Structures are given as structure tokens and as C-alpha cells.
């Protein structure tokens, strides 16, 4: 591809940014109507037979998410064009990116639980594809698979939870569940539903102990990390918790689980962030912190707590996606993301530096930045909780102080100081790249100055969507001197201390993490290794390549399972009687018996095959004499062809060398198994004969065969008309077997 082509494809890719822009505009015009008229609920039949409708519920919570997704999506699209310039798979990248965005939008709008689940899984799959975008790198593939397995397992738990909810309440729409909330909370299956739904949310939102996939997901291209793994997808779990807050929330289990897990995740993530030197890893761990904080506040019951969760959601999306984009620019322009190789970039990259400073100050929660508003409301919420307020307050202060320190580290270590000589040639990135972080950082400042407006139009509708409260929901810049403000001051002091001590802390954490006896990441690796070991074990035991062993296992399983079921569950004695048969039937029986004895005794393979053919033909005559000409015909033909084909194979085979006769024990085992299978099948057949058959189907076919299907041969009418779907399946199997056999024979010939 030459430069002009590149240039043209860049503009095509850039034009796809119109899609998120349109969605953003559309969603923005919906804010007012939704506020005044209530949620919009479009619905389409999807699988009406299973009561599944593609129903949506667009309320304040959905709109907040839609606006975040489409705004960040817009900047990320513009950014990615330059970030990936010249990459040979940009088309695929943008396909995945936009497909992800649409699935994410579906996720936050879906009302039907099955629809939500499908969109949920779609985001998981696109996240997998995007993390593994650089699929030629083994680390990238490993991280992608890890994210897929962890979030996919959570998705399955979620599905089970949804099914339980649907069975108990009889409704498939989330909006219809709220009226059952009280019944659900006292239902004996509440704990099961709670655990399943929480597993879905916690894996998606990287809560402890499932947090480990998120830092590894940093193998994705940086714009993807900015979009999926900070601003949108990982917030899917938060969305789910908010959505189910009025349905499952409010119980002691809910509050305790969310608060404790959230607190551990928030503080743990922030501490781990201090031990990282890779820009993206630092941001990933602080994202885990932020998700922990949101989870913690969604555990609460008080209005300020829930307001805090939603406000912080917006705060975090703005600054964190900006920071990720900044990290990508730094990586793109300098070729490194390691803190120790960076420094003094502010003069080289002024726009990027400005946006980074704005984002970091918002993260640190400085007054006049939106982060400050988020932090104040957080402390207000924590203090308003009745259940374990001390835990929430201390976790919030500690996490915020550590994030303040991280903000300081990012500004100082990357942009401040003397420019390093090896970075002297670094230039500012293209405008398409820095426009995103600059605008997102700018919004962070504007929102910080007019919080009342943001509170009224974005946060309040979102909170009201899942929380009925008589209290006013307001965001304010200055509340007067009160407890939250004092906690803010404490946060800055602590944050300053952490910043000053960050180098020793870094060295300390580095060593400690490696010395931990067990981490979630290692537990995951252990599980995967265990599954692989089990796979190898069963392959060695069951599939060792010996045809004899395969047949033995298949037959033994049949005998044991069928025999066990028959003797324990079904009480039909085999009907044994010696019927009076005409002489020709006795002759037939004698013929078949002679053929069986021949098969057993002969050492010549060709003779054995022919004798088997005689048995088959004898059976065909039995069918014929009892009035089943179709079965007889097919049986006879199949036997004939089998003998022909096996004879061809035998004639083609090289002459078998005389091998040592099989061991006696082995022959004895084979004999016992063959005898058992024979006796079992015979007695089963006799037992079946003892039952009076249900003739209703026969009557149906007799009546309808000619009238409905123009055929007098009922067997064939059943095959090609009444039950033609079965036949369809069978011919697909026949065709697949034929092609597979052909491939096998050709492969052998090639060797």
C-alpha cells in the first residue's frame, strides 16, 4: 500500500467517527424528553415463541452511559486513525471498534434480560478480539484469552441468574422486576440469584479477586484501553449493579458484599498502581481502584452514596480515557511507556501535557476540577451510610490519597523536569490525536465549574432511574466548611506524603508482590494448567489410538449405563417363551447361528466379513417375512455394500504379518464384554416385546400418509415428509462422513 492509498483509507476510517457523533447528538436531544416524560421503551419481537422481545428501556441511567460511550467513541475513532497509521489491519480494527460500541450501547439500553445477556456477551467477544488485535504476539493472545475466559465465565453466571429471576417472577423485562423486589429479597433463592448476578458484574468490572485480567488487557492497542478498559466495557458491571439496585439491593448481603469487595478492590488497586512503572499498567490499576469505589458506593442505600457512584462514573470516564489517550500519544511519539525512560516532555508536547495535567488534577481531586466535586460527594455519601460508614470513609480517603499521589507521579515523572537527551527529537502528535484528551480534559474543568448543571441534567436523571428518593440530588462546588471538606484536606495531606515516598514505596511493592504465596493471576494460571492436565490425562486414558481400546470403551459404557438404568429404574421382565415357528424360520435361525460361529472361529478376515454379511442377509429375510419390506431392502443393501467396501479395503491392505496371539486375559475380557452386550440387547428386545405398543402414532401416519402426503409407503413418507428434518440431519452426517473419509484416505496416501 503506498502513501496516497494510506492517506485515503485514513480519511475513510476518520469518517466512521460520524457514527458515534450522530449517536451522541441523538442521545443529547433525548435528555430533555426523558426527564419530563419518563423513559422511552421501544420493543421489537425477537423470539416471540420464547417470550423474548428486543425491548429497550432508555432512561436517565442509559442516557448517561450512551453519552459517555458515544463521546469517548468519537474521540477514540479520530485518535485511532493516526495511532494505527500504516497498520495492515486497520479495517478489521475499526469494524471491531464500532461493533463493540454498538453492542455496548445495546447493553445499556436493553430491557429484556436475554437481550441484555446477548449484548453483554457481544462486548466480551469484541473485547477479546480487540485485546488480541496484535494476534501475532503470544502475550497478546494470552491476555485476550484470559479476559475472555474470566468475563465469559461471569457472563454464564449472569445468564443463570437471569433465568432464575425470570422463572421466579415470570417476567423477562428488567423494568417489570421492580414490583417483585420485596418478594425477591425474601425468596429462598435470593442468595443464589445475588451470587450469580454479582459474579457477572464483578468479573466484568474487574473486582477483587477477578481484577487480574484488566492489567493484562493492556496488551490491546492504547485507544482500545481508553475506550473499553476504562470508559465503557468495564463499567458494564457497574451499570448492572445500578440497574439491579432497586431489585436486589438494600439487603445486608448486598451492602456488605459490595462495600467490602469494593473497598478491597479500591485500596488494593491503588496500592498496586504505586508498584508499576509502565504508564498503561499504572492507569489500569487506578481504573481498578475507580471501579472498586463505584462498586462500594453502589452497595450503599443513602441517596448521596448512589449520587457519588454516578458522579464518579462520569468523572472517571472523562479523566481516565484522556489519560489513556495521553499514554498512547507518549508511547507513539517516544516509543516507550516506562516511567524511568520519560521526563521533561512538557515543552516538546505542549497540548498533550496540558491535557494530561488537567486529567491528573481531576483524578487528584483539586478544586475547580470535576474530580473535586466527585470526591466531595463521595465523602458525603460515605458519611451518610448507616452500615459500616467507617470502612467506606477510610477506604475512600486512602484510595483517593493514593490516586492523588499517582496523579502527581504522572505529571512530574513524564512531563516535568529536564528534557532527556534521548527524547530531544520528540515532536507533538497530530491534532487528531491530542484533540480528544484536550477536549475531555477541558470538559473536566467546565463540569468542575458548573457542577449544578451537570447534576441537574446528567447525574440526577441517572440516579433517579434506579433510586426513588425524596431527597434533592445536587452537585455543588462549595458546601461550606464541613466534614467532607476536612476529609478532602486530609486526602491531600496523605496524598502528598505518598507522593514524597513513592520511590521507596515502589521498590517495596515490587518485591512484595513477587513474594506473595498466591495471587489471583497465578490461581487463574493454575486453573488453566489443571484443565490442560486433565485433558491430557483423559486423552492418554481414552484415546490412545488403539481401535480395540475405543471399541472396548464404547461397548463397556453402553453395557454399564444401559444395564444399570434398566435394572434399577425400569421394571419389565423379559418375556421368554418358545414360539411355534414354521420349519423355514428354524432353517433361517440355523443359518444365522452357523454364520455367527464362523465369524467367531475363523482366522481369515475375508471369510469373517462374508459370514457377517450372511448374518445381515438372514436378518433381512426375517424382516421380510414379518412384513417390513422397506427395512429388509435397506438392510440387505447395506450388508451388500459393507461386504463390498470392506473387501476392497482388505484386498488393498498389505498382507498381515502373523502377530503373536492376544493374551488370554485380554481375550477373556473381550469375551465377557461381548457376551454381556449380547445378553443385554437380547433381553432388552424381549422386554420391549412384552409391552403393549402405543399405536396412536401408527394410526396418525396411516390416516394422513396418503391424504396429506400423497404416499402409500408410510416408511418413505415419514422419511421424506413427516420427519424430513431428521433425514436432513442424517444426510448431513452422511455427507460429512463421506468427505471426512475421503480426506483421511488421501492423507494416508500422502504419507
Amino acid at each position, binding site marked *: 500500500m503506498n502513501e496516497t492509498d494510506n492517506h485515503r483509507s485514513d480519511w475513510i476510517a476518520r469518517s466512521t467517527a460520524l457514527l458515534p457523533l450522530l449517536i451522541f447528538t441523538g442521545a443529547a436531544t433525548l435528555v430533555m424528553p426523558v426527564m419530563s416524560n419518563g423513559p422511552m421503551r421501544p420493543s421489537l419481537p425477537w423470539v416471540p415463541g420464547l417470550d423474548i422481545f428486543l425491548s429497550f428501556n432508555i432512561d436517565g441511567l442509559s442516557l448517561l452511559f450512551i453519552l459517555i460511550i458515544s463521546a469517548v467513541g468519537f474521540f477514540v475513532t479520530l485518535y485511532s486513525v493516526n495511532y494505527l497509521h500504516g497498520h495492515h489491519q486497520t479495517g478489521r480494527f475499526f469494524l471491531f471498534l464500532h461493533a463493540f460500541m454498538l453492542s455496548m450501547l445495546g447493553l445499556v439500553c436493553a430491557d429484556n434480560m436475554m437481550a441484555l445477556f446477548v449484548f453483554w456477551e457481544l462486548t466480551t467477544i469484541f473485547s477479546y478480539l480487540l485485546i488480541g488485535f496484535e494476534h501475532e504476539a503470544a502475550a497478546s493472545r494470552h491476555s485476550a484469552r484470559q479476559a475472555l475466559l474470566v468475563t465469559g465465565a461471569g457472563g454464564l453466571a449472569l445468564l443463570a441468574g437471569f433465568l432464575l429471576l425470570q422463572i421466579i417472577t415470570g417476567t423477562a423485562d428488567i423494568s417489570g422486576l421492580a414490583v417483585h423486589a420485596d418478594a425477591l429479597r425474601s425468596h429462598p433463592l435470593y442468595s443464589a440469584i445475588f451470587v450469580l448476578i454479582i459474579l457477572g458484574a464483578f468479573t466484568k468490572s474487574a473486582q477483587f479477586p477477578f481484577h487480574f485480567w484488566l492489567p493484562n488487557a493492556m496488551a490491546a492497542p492504547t485507544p482500545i484501553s481508553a475506550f473499553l478498559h476504562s470508559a465503557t466495557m468495564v463499567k458494564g458491571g457497574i451499570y448492572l449493579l445500578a440497574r439491579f439496585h432497586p431489585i436486589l439491593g438494600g439487603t445486608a448481603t448486598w451492602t456488605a458484599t459490595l462495600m467490602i469487595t469494593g473497598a478491597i478492590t479500591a485500596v488494593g488497586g491503588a496500592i498496586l498502581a504505586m508498584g508499576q512503572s509502565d504508564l498503561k499498567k499504572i492507569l489500569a490499576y487506578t481504573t481498578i481502584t475507580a471501579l472498586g469505589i463505584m462498586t462500594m458506593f453502589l452497595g450503599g442505600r443513602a441517596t448521596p452514596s448512589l449520587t457519588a457512584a454516578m458522579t464518579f462514573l462520569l468523572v472517571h470516564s472523562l479523566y481516565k480515557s484522556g489519560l489513556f489517550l495521553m499514554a498512547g500519544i507518549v508511547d507513539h511519539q517516544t516509543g516507550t511507556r516506562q516511567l524511568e525512560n520519560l521526563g521533561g516532555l512538557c515543552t516538546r508536547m505542549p497540548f498533550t501535557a496540558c491535557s494530561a495535567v488537567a486529567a491528573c488534577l481531576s483524578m487528584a481531586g483539586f478544586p475547580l476540577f470535576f474530580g473535586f466535586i466527585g470526591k466531595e460527594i463521595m465523602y458525603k455519601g460515605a458519611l451518610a451510610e448507616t452500615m459500616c460508614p467507617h470502612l467506606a470513609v477510610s477506604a475512600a480517603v486512602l484510595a483517593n490519597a493514593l490516586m492523588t499521589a499517582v496523579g502527581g507521579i504522572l505529571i512530574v515523572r513524564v512531563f516535568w523536569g529536564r528534557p532527556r537527551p534521548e527524547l530531544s527529537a520528540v515532536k507533538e502528535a497530530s491534532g487528531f490525536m491530542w484533540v480528544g484528551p484536550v477536549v475531555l480534559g477541558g470538559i473536566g474543568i467546565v463540569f468542575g465549574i458548573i457542577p449544578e448543571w451537570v447534576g441537574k441534567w446528567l447525574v440526577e436523571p441517572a440516579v433517579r432511574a434506579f433510586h426513588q428518593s425524596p431527597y434533592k440530588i445536587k452537585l455543588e462546588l462549595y458546601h461550606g466548611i464541613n466534614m467532607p471538606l476536612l476529609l478532602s484536606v486530609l486526602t491531600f495531606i496523605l496524598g502528598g506524603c505518598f507522593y514524597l515516598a513513592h520511590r521507596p514505596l515502589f521498590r517495596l511493592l515490587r518485591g512484595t508482590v513477587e513474594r506473595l504465596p498466591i495471587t489471583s493471576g497465578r490461581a487463574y494460571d493454575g486453573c488453566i494448567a489443571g484443565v490442560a492436565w486433565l485433558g491430557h490425562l483423559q486423552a492418554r486414558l481414552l484415546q490412545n489410538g488403539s481401535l480395540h481400546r475405543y471399541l472396548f470403551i464404547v461397548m463397556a459404557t453402553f453395557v454399564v449405563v444401559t444395564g444399570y438404568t434398566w435394572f434399577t429404574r425400569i421394571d419389565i421382565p423379559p418375556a421368554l417363551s418358545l414360539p411355534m415357528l414354521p420349519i423355514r424360520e428354524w432353517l433361517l435361525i440355523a443359518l444365522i447361528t452357523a454364520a455367527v460361529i464362523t465369524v467367531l472361529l475363523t482366522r481369515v478376515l475375508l471369510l469373517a466379513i462374508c459370514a457377517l454379511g450372511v448374518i445381515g442377509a438372514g436378518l433381512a429375510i426375517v424382516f421380510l417375512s414379518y412384513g417390513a419390506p*422397506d427395512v429388509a*431392502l435397506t438392510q440387505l443393501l447395506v450388508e451388500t*455394500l459393507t461386504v463390498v467396501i470392506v473387501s476392497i479395503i482388505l484386498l*488393498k491392505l498389505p498382507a498381515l504379518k502373523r502377530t503373536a496371539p492376544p493374551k488370554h486375559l485380554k481375550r477373556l475380557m473381550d469375551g465377557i464384554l461381548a457376551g454381556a452386550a449380547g445378553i443385554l440387547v437380547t433381553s432388552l428386545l424381549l422386554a420391549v416385546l412384552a409391552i403393549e405398543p402405543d399405536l396412536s402414532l401408527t394410526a396418525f401416519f396411516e390416516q394422513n400418509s396418503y391424504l*396429506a*402426503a400423497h404416499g402409500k409407503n408410510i416408511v418413505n413418507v415419514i422419511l421424506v*415428509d413427516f420427519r424430513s428434518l431428521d*433425514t436432513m440431519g442424517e444426510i448431513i452426517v452422511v455427507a460429512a*462422513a463421506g468427505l471426512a473419509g475421503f480426506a483421511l484416505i488421501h492423507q494416508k496416501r500422502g504419507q
Partner: protein
Amino acid sequence: MQSLILRSSTRLLVSLILVFSIYLLIRGHQSPGGGFSGALVAGTAFALYAIAEGTASVRRALRFDPRNLIVIGMLLALVSGLTGSIAGQPFLTGVWWTFTIGHDYEIALGTPLFFDIGVYLIVLGTILTLILALEES
């Protein structure tokens, strides 16, 4: 195996068996027979021919690779199934047309016949693919 007796009788037998096979296929809806048995009969005919004259002659007689039969049969079965869907009924529902021949002789022609022909082609294609591949290996 180049036996004169086998070769001469094969020439006569193969054409007879093939005609019988088509007969079985067509009469299947009213009397014993049908696509599956018809295809098995045709399979034995070609197997006999292959043993007597060699696979090259079979391939010459067929004019195309038997794997194509599988594909054509599958398409035929699918199309006859989809005809029901197009007629607004569930997939694979039989759709029938009746023609009057002469004064009062009616013939009913339906998609199950085409479905049966599809079964015939797939089974025959599979048998031929395997027999020829085995003979040539």
C-alpha cells in the same frame, strides 16, 4: 482383476442395476424403495463396475467427481425444504402440485420427491467418493 466373464456380465448388469435403482427411487413414495435404497443399489452397480473395469472407467462414465453429487444433493434437499418456507409454512413442509393428464388421471408432484432425490444424490455421492478413493489408494 481382469476376468472376461466378469467384464461381460458387468456391462449388462450395471445398466440393469442402475435402471432398477432409478425405479426404486421413483416408486419409493408408494411402494418399498426410496432415495436411500435406490442410492445403495446404484452404489453396488458402480462398485461392481469399478471392480471389473477399474476406477478410471468409472470416472469416465460418471464424467465428474462424485463429491459434486454430495453438493448437488445437499442443495436440492435444501431448496426443496426452503420451498415450504417460501410458501409461508415451516421449513421442510411438503408443497404439492397436481397435474391432470388425459381426462381423469391425476399426478401429484411434491417437494418430498426432490428431497428424496437429494438424499439419493448425497448417499450415492458418499459411497462413490469412498469406493473410488479406496480403490485408488
